[in-house]
Structures are given as C-alpha cells and as structure tokens.
C-alpha cells in the first residue's frame, strides 16, 4: 500500500515543464508489453481446465434441459403413471369417502364389494378407486373388478388392457366398448373387458365368469345405478 502511494505521489508531482524524452515513451511501452507477454504465459492446466469446464457445462445443459422441460406438465397433457407410483388404501365407507374428498362417481354398493383408493405417492392426489365384487351362485362365482379414474388427464398400466375393444353396446344410455375373451388355460372361463365414460369419469370394468353372455355386462352396469 505504501509503495503504491509513493508511486501515486510521484505521478502527481511530476512537473509539467519536465523535458520530454521521445524515446522514454517507446521504452515504457516496450517494457509494458514485455510484462504483458510474461503474464500471458499461463500454465497449460489453467487453459485446459477452463476448456473442459466449458464443455461439461454445455453438455450438461444439452442433456438436462430436455429432461427438465419434459418434466414440466403442459395443460391437457395426458400423463402416464405406473402402479409403482401409487399408494393403495382401504375405503371403509365409500359414501363418506366421496363426501370427504368431494368426488362424485357411481360405484358398486353390494355387500360383497370391497373398495380401495389409489393415490399418487408424490402428491397424495386421489387417482382412481378400485372395487372388487364377488358374485356367487350355485354354479360358481364371477369375479368383478371396477376401476374408476377420477384424476383427469391421467393414464395407468391397467388402461392398456382396455385398448382396441372391438365391440360396442349401450346400457342405461351409456355407450360401452367391450370385448369378451376365452381364458385359454382354463378353457371354460371368459374374461370381459368393458370401458365407458360418464360425467367425465372413466370406468374400467373386468369380469371373469364361467358364462359367456352379453347379459353379464348389463347385469353389472345396472348395479352402478346410473
């Protein structure tokens, strides 16, 4: 600090009538340039680490920016969730469940029905309601599974089972898409796939029955009391 102050004082105190020496300027410029050159000879590692850091930053942005942008949900974009992303919980009273969560949907109210709800692990948002119903008669039983999707713009693993259902049918003024397939390994059972929408809610119904009859579909849709 003292040295700098001394230098500053010297500069300030140079007399204006000091004899100009034309070579002095050149000499000073030459010395300045020599010093600059000395400073320019930096160690190579500084240069290469700077280049490497720049490349990593560029690559990182190029890789992570698309990932970040794709994670931002656009309006009306259909999001796909795997079962692994769900929490499942038992529903004691489905009427109370609807009131507490302010969701309205049609459901099986039969005594032989049990209900669960699936919520997203990340946000606890209710995604769908799962109901299982057993319908017994003297010949055997039907196993009925109903999934009621209440989360908008959402698709799940099980939805893929209901793609490309080739038949259609109307029950209670609701247009259903369905297919009935024989379960080959047991020979005498049939798997029904039925899907439909009502009041902007998607319903996915599976029926495993020892009987082949479209009346089975009517029978269980009527239980939903649309």
């Amino acid at each position, binding site marked *: 600090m003292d040295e*700098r102050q001394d*230098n*500053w004082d010297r*500069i300030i105190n*140079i007399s*204006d*009538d*000091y004899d*100009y020496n034309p070579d*002095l300027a050149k000499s*000073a410029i030459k010395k*300045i340039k020599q*010093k600059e050159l000395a*400073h320019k000879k*930096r160690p190579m590692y*500084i240069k290469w*680490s*700077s280049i*490497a*850091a720049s490349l*990593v*930053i560029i*690559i*990182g942005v190029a*890789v992570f920016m698309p990932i970040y942008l794709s994670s931002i949900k656009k309006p009306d974009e259909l999001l796909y969730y*795997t*079962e*692994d*992303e*769900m*929490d*499942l*919980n*038992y529903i004691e009273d489905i009427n109370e469940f609807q009131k507490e969560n302010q969701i309205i949907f049609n459901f099986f109210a039969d005594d*032989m029905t049990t209900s*669960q709800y*699936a*919520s*997203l*692990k*990340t946000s606890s948002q209710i995604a769908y309601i799962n109901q*299982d119903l*057993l319908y017994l008669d003297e*010949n*055997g*039983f039907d*196993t009925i*599974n109903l999934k009621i999707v209440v989360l908008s713009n959402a698709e799940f693993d*099980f939805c*893929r*089972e209901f*793609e*490309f259902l*080739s038949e259609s049918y109307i029950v209670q003024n609701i247009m259903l898409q369905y297919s009935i*397939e024989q379960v*080959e*390994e*047991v020979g*005498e059972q049939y798997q029904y796939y039925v899907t439909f929408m009502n009041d902007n809610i998607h319903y996915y119904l599976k029926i495993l029955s*020892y009987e082949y009859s479209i009346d089975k579909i009517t029978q269980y849709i009527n239980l939903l009391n649309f």
Partner: protein
Amino acid sequence: MHSSKCLLYSKYFGGAFMKNAKFLRTLYTTFAVAICIVMLGSLFGQNSTIAFAETQETLYYEDLYSGNPTNGTVTIADYEVYYDSYEITEIVAHVSAPSFKNWSSEYSNYCGPLTGMNVIGFFDRWYTNLVPNYTPGMIFSNGTYNYYPDLGQTTTRNAFNSLYGLMRTGELGGTTSTNFKNGLNTYVSNAGYSFSYSSCYLNTTSINLTELAIAINQNKVAILMCSEYNYILKMSNVASESKMSIIKNNSTIAHMMMVYGYKTIAYYKDNVNFRTDTFLLVTSSTGTGDVGYMQMNDFAIIDEALIMTIS
C-alpha cells in the same frame, strides 16, 4: 508531457488491474473445476439396483418410490405377433391361484410378503390352519377349484401383516431371499405345518419346466426371485387381424412372484412354425393383486426359482 503522464497513469492503474485479473483467473479456474466435478458426478447418475457388498443380499421390492431412481425403471414393451395360425402346444397350470393385494400405505416394498401370502393362500385349501377362519375358494359345477379374489378380510390381512414382520420387509425396505425363506418357514411352523423348498432354476431367463410340471401335478406352486423381469398384463388373440397382442412391461426393479403354471404357444405362417414362446402364469405380487404372465427367454434376470412345499 500529457502523454507521459498518461502512460504512467496507465502503468499504475494497469498494474492494479493486472493483479486483479490474476486473482479473477484463479477464481474462475477454481469455480470451473468445481463445476466439472459436480456435472460429471450427476451425469454418471446412480445405480439402478441396490447393489450390496458381496456378503449382503439383493432386496426384492414392489414399489418404486418416486424420486428414488435407485430401485429401477418400468418400461412399456408391448408387441404383436402376426400369424396364419397358432396353437397352444402345452399348458400345465392350476385353474386359478390366489393373488392378494396391499390394503394400506403403511406397507411398502411388499412383493416378498405378498408372494408368501399367495403361497399360504394356495396351500390353505388343504392346510386350513395356515389362514384361520378363511375359505380360500370353491369348486365350480364344472369340477374346477377356483380361488376367491382378495376381498380384504381381517383374517387374510392379519396373515399378511404377520408375514411382513417375519420377513423383516419394513425393517429393511424390501425382502431378501434368506428372510423370505426364514419368514415363511416360521409362519408355516407356527401354524403347525412344515415348509421346504427345492430349486427349479435353469438360467437367468428360464426355469426347469419339467420340474415345474411335476410340482403343479403334485398340487404345489413355485416362486421366482428376479433382479429384472417382464410382466404381461394381457395376452389377446385378435382373430380379426390374425395377431396375438401382448401388453407387457419390462422392469429393472428386483421382484418376487408366485408361479402357478406355464403355457407354450407356437405360431405358424405358410404351415411353418416360425416362432414359439413360453409363458409362466404368475401372480403379480403388486398392490392390486393381479395375475398375468412372465415370458421365458425374454427380458429377465432370474436369481432363484423355487418349488414350495407345505405339508
């Protein structure tokens, strides 16, 4: 003179500036190296399975916690096979199998206890103390025995809760092979029966189907422990388009499932068998308690395949 003063001014200020520039370069270099290390670390990412040290075991899960990419990934792997004709050349399977669900979010990573629950639910047909006060199924008028779907009865949920504890699943965040066997053995012994198992392992993508067929005919089931696996949600013959449509997921999440049979499908074009696939009939051992298939000689790393015996 003015020029001289200017030169000296610039030398003074230039000197000060040169020292600051050196500091700035050092600072920039340090920052650049730090960025390098951080970016390279995040680019390499994390391992997709829990890899234990040699003395420790693989943990089998069901769930992938969001934000926990270390458990693995699930990829859609649907495909179609177009044919002139096809036939099921072999099928050895129980008509149905129990497939229990998870009923509470207080449980997690539960494929181990769910698989154990499916095993005891299967054998409860003959060994009724396994699940007290529970009837697992009924005989249809066509003579076939069919297991009821899981309706969340208290007795089955209590049995699942016991297995969850005995297998130490909650403790470890998954189920090891040792804990599965020990936990199931303890549960079965407490019910007054004996438990044993034997291997039907063949390689990482297949099991010994001869051994499995013998087991099925002896009213037994098998279980799989996989570091990676495929699961077929639906297999549909679309006759109008002469194609078999397979809805399938490939998963790198370590998982257990119960096996209750297998079937083999041969496809023909111009009367030539161009493709043959074998599928194990499995319980999903996931929260929704489904049944499906796992394709042999396909996406899988089978660690163990075990025939279960309860007597």
